[in-house]
């Protein structure tokens, strides 16, 4: 029997494969068997509705994509009544990604949501004017927001870090000191796409967030740096496309992974990754996933 279970602090996941925030919605349950996942992180929720950015919102690059969605969501009240009940029925561990434009907003949302497995605090979205990566670049702010959220809930708190910092170890340390159970490394990388027709930026907000296989070495390096400097579980996120990528993230120090853009390229990727991970471990004689990074 192959054991894929993994631990994030005191929290045990049946396997390390999580679906990232902002890439899936309920229609994906028709394609993916969510019961097989380690868990999911839902689309970012803010206190008030956010309209999102004007289209175009997406374009592709070699080996990836750039998005400028802008955290479109219908706000906390809608989330509580229309989305949360269905999230609880998914049959997998659900983390709620929360977004605020101020510490107060983070606190208010965190205090209102219960009966989920945990929170992921979004302080790293590059596509919004207020909050987002502006918070995530400042270790003091990372500490304050994490501490404020942890003060409002007994649920485990994950902090999704911005890659747009000089020393990601510092923001990871700030999240740890604020009380985070784990950090996600990392969000999308800000980038520019030029439209040859209009001879200007494609996106109305100028920049977008780059994701997909193109960023894998960058995000992998962030995981490695944090793991070697801060004693906190790291969830690797960035360009994971197959089971080998999962193994690489584990060897770099991750305790779980998030799949994002790949489910646009191949919606069955999460299931294929889990199946192939088991095959690989069987072939190599591993019984427990936690042993794969041992030399």
């Amino acid at each position, binding site marked *: 029997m192959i054991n894929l279970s993994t631990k994030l602090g005191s929290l045990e996941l049946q396997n390390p494969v999580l679906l990232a925030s902002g890439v*899936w919605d309920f*229609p*994906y349950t*028709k394609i993916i068997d969510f019961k097989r996942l380690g868990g999911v992180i839902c689309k970012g929720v803010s206190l008030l509705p956010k309209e*999102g950015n004007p289209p175009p*919102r997406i374009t592709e690059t070699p080996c990836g994509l750039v998005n400028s969605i802008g955290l479109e969501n219908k706000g906390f009240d809608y989330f509580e009544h229309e989305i949360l009940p269905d999230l609880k029925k998914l049959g997998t561990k659900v983390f709620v990604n929360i977004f605020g434009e101020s510490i107060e907003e983070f606190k208010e949302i965190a205090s209102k949501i219960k009966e989920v497995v945990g929170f992921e605090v979004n302080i790293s979205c590059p596509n919004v004017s207020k909050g987002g990566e502006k918070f995530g670049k400042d270790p003091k702010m990372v500490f304050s927001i994490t501490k404020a959220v942890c003060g409002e809930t007994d649920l485990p708190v994950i902090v999704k870090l911005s890659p747009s910092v000089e020393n990601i170890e510092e923001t990871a340390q700030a999240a740890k000191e604020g009380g985070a159970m784990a950090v996600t490394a990392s969000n999308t990388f800000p980038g520019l796409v030029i439209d040859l027709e209009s001879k200007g930026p494609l996106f109305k907000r100028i920049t977008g967030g780059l994701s997909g296989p193109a960023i894998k070495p960058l995000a992998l390096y962030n995981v490695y740096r944090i793991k070697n400097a801060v004693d906190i579980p790291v969830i690797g996120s960035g360009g994971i496309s197959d089971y080998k990528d999962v193994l690489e993230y584990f060897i770099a120090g991750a305790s779980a992974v998030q799949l994002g853009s790949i489910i646009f390229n191949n919606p069955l990727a999460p299931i294929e990754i889990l199946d192939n991970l088991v095959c690989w471990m069987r072939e190599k004689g591993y019984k427990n996933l936690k042993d794969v990074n041992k030399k």
Partner: protein
Amino acid sequence: MEPTFRILPVLENKKIGPYHKITLKDVQMYNHAECGNFVMIGLQGFDPYLSRPFSFLEGNRTSFSILMKVKGRGTELLSKVKKGDKLKVLGPLGKIFCPPKKGILIAGGIGIAPVYYQSRWMNGDILFYGAKRKKDLILTREFSDKGFTVRTITEEDEGLVTDLLKEYTDELNGKQIFICGAMGMIKSIKGILNKEQIEKAYVYVEERMGCGLGGCKSCAVKTFEGYRLVCTEGPIFPLKEVKFD
């Protein structure tokens, strides 16, 4: 039918006018596909990274086809597929719509594909169809065979589809109208329809799409009720609800 994600073989890639008609072998989807449904189609691997949304064009018990226009690098690569190549197919997607037996179809350019697919459930009335050049007009005989009066116009000769509509505007009265084409064309058409005609008009909206399943929130279209997603709330929207720049 619930959507599935499968790898399907190409039976044929044939040039029709300026477009590519790609036929895929499939025994499941077309018989169950409904009006409003579309598919996401992509090459295996990471180049291009994203699949592209396509309306069904036509099909039968063993295959279906889509119509494609080369617009950028992604469609350029897709246009080169050969018999036996395999493509990723996600579908059927989209919000289904109950089409009328008779009605007005208005198409500009490649917008002919979704309205041709819709004509599967119809037994005629009028098609207004505009294209750049005479040789770009396709499927006109097939529409005639289905009992449609076909009115065409080309930019190289006479003008735009809106000119055609101005001439025959009374023919639109009291009927459901379905429009597919560039947003600029749709906006101009809205400008010449009267209030009653707008009430009964629907548009097929196209927008850059990431996943087709409502996950990425990329394919936003501006409506009077805020942004809505083409993939799960469309692609067919009431004309009166769509907000134009």
